């Protein structure tokens, strides 16, 4: 059994309080650093893709999991980041400059979307963001002069201080490094005043106002941060795919991101990572099991969507807190062993109450 015997406030603040946690993360770090030398090319590429998806998922988590603002159209921010970055590279801007500028650009768009989003909430916001994603795909497709339209746009290689990072291993470490920076930054932000304020806005706006939280300001801030982080993911994705087309950033990507965040576990950064890994690995997993199924080649697209849907349904019905919820339950089981109570996490019986007329 484990009890929290904090003897100072710093103890409580520490991220990795116990030796076991520190050891586990050290092992993880070693594995991730060693991976490009141990795994084959395909898997290294896949892991890079996962890192990029993790960044995107973290972006959406800040908005949806922590501030409670639904966005069914986050693919738009990835698209904007990707195209802005690729366009600037094409104009000769150095990579190290283009990335922050692309992030700033998407953050600005996040501001533009966030401001009217204050007046719109819940379901309506979901629809507005959905429409925004479709519109963005549409605009990218039609603005041939800048984006190459439906014919696509090629992406230059990432070159930092003369080093070409487009190789498999350098790009892997670049993505891993950026993911670590983003993750640490967000961990810090979410355990500070800003993160608490986000959660306050999510859980009760009335109480938040009463405690001095400028709700509208924080909602917009969440959009800006979320958009900026997603822009980074988009820019990296641009290098990963090397050739941009609007279809790659459409509705399906937006829903994938929502799946990542929901299945991973709303309200936790760990959940964002879990979700991104699961959903990112799904297509690989499906292509693995396809040969074992008696289906014909023409049914491939259906199978992927089917599995996505099935997983989402199963999680919503049986594990609404997502993978992170399951993780916490398992951890609690081991930490309170053998005194774990079976109904510790049981949900109470609830009735539907109209959210319109409260």
């Amino acid at each position: 059994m484990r009890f929290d015997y904090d003897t100072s406030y710093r103890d409580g603040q520490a991220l990795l309080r116990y030796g076991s946690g520190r050891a586990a993360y050290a092992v993880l770090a070693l594995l991730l650093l060693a991976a490009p030398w141990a795994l084959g090319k395909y898997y290294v590429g896949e892991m890079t893709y996962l890192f990029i998806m993790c960044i995107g998922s973290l972006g959406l988590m800040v908005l949806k999991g922590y501030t409670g603002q639904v966005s069914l159209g986050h693919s738009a921010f990835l698209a904007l980041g990707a195209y802005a970055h690729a366009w600037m590279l094409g104009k000769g801007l150095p990579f190290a400059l283009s990335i922050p500028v692309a992030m700033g650009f998407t953050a600005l768009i996040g501001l533009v979307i966030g401001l009217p989003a204050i007046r719109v909430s819940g379901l309506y916001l979901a629809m507005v963001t959905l429409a925004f994603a479709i519109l963005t795909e549409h605009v990218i497709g039609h603005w041939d002069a800048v984006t190459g339209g439906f014919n696509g746009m090629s992406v230059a290689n990432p070159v930092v201080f003369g080093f070409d990072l487009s190789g498999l291993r350098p790009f892997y470490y670049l993505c891993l490094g950026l993911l670590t920076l983003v993750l640490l930054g967000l961990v810090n932000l979410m355990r500070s005043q800003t993160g608490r304020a986000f959660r306050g806005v999510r859980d009760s706006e009335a109480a938040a106002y009463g405690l001095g939280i400028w709700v509208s300001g924080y909602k917009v801030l969440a959009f800006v941060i979320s958009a900026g982080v997603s822009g980074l993911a988009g820019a990296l994705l641009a290098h990963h795919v090397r050739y941009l087309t609007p279809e790659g950033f459409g509705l399906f990507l937006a829903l994938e991101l929502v799946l990542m965040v929901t299945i991973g576990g709303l309200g936790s950064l760990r959940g964002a990572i879990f979700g991104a890994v699961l959903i990112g690995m799904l297509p690989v997993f499906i292509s693995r099991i396809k040969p074992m199924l008696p289906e014909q080649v023409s049914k491939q697209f259906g199978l992927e969507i089917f599995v996505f849907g099935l997983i989402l349904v199963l999680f919503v019905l049986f594990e609404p807190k997502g993978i992170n919820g399951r993780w916490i339950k398992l951890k609690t089981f081991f930490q309170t062993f053998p005194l774990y109570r079976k109904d510790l996490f049981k949900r109470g019986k609830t009735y539907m109450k109209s959210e319109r007329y409260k």
Partner: protein
Amino acid sequence: MTTVIQLTINGMAIGAIYALVALGLVLTYKATEVLNFIHGDLLMASSFIGWGLIVVLKWPFWLAVLATVAIAMVFSWVLDARVMRLIVGQPQFAGVMLTIGIAFTLRGLVSMSFGPESRNYPTPWTNQKTQLGGVVIADLSLVIVATALLVTLALFWFLRRTTLGVAIQAASQNQLAAFLSGIRVKRLTSLVWALTGGIAALCGLLLAPTALVDISLWFVMIKALAAVVLGGFGSIPGAILGGLLLGVIEQFAGVYLPDGYKDAVAYLVLIGVLVLWPRGLLGDAHGRRV
């Protein structure tokens, strides 16, 4: 002048489909506060079933329509009774996620069962047109408009004038109170889902001859969302009005606005209305008491 009238008529013909789809969405929303993402995919699946019955099994058109609508209704009833009921009381977002998941599953199943090619099937009105005072309308469009109007009137009367309808509205506002008042909430909710399923099937069967029996048919639901928003969420006459208006707006945008705007205009309308005018044309306002 005839162009304007022709455009309006065309717009209303397309708008009638939007209106009918929107109607289904509003119905589920009114009853369960869930945005039913399954609607589009059920619509699409029904068109495939219709194709199967009409072209493969060679059933007469009317029989196929009835059978498909019945299948959709039963499917929706069972879906609510067995699946949707499991998340009662959870926040709205859970319902939306569940319907998205089921929609994906349905889409995947249809795609795997039928393959990616588009198909079509004949209707009694294929290739027939009527002339009304200088304007040409496809007969199928007339049928669509008529169906939309009929269904709307039937629903309106049902929800306002019958005890069952009022009970449905009560259950949507406070389930526990409705239950304690003797309303059989579970059965009613399933009934509403069944009705929506039937409407989805009708939409699919009527839309497919024009738009082809294809997986992408589900996308009309997004346009219907714009219609619902325009008309005002939670309002049945609003859904109809919104749908018809949206169809007309699209037609005019196609002619009078630069290239490429026609497809985008529905989403611009959606965003614009929600940001500037959240109530829509006929919607109800709602707030939160602290």
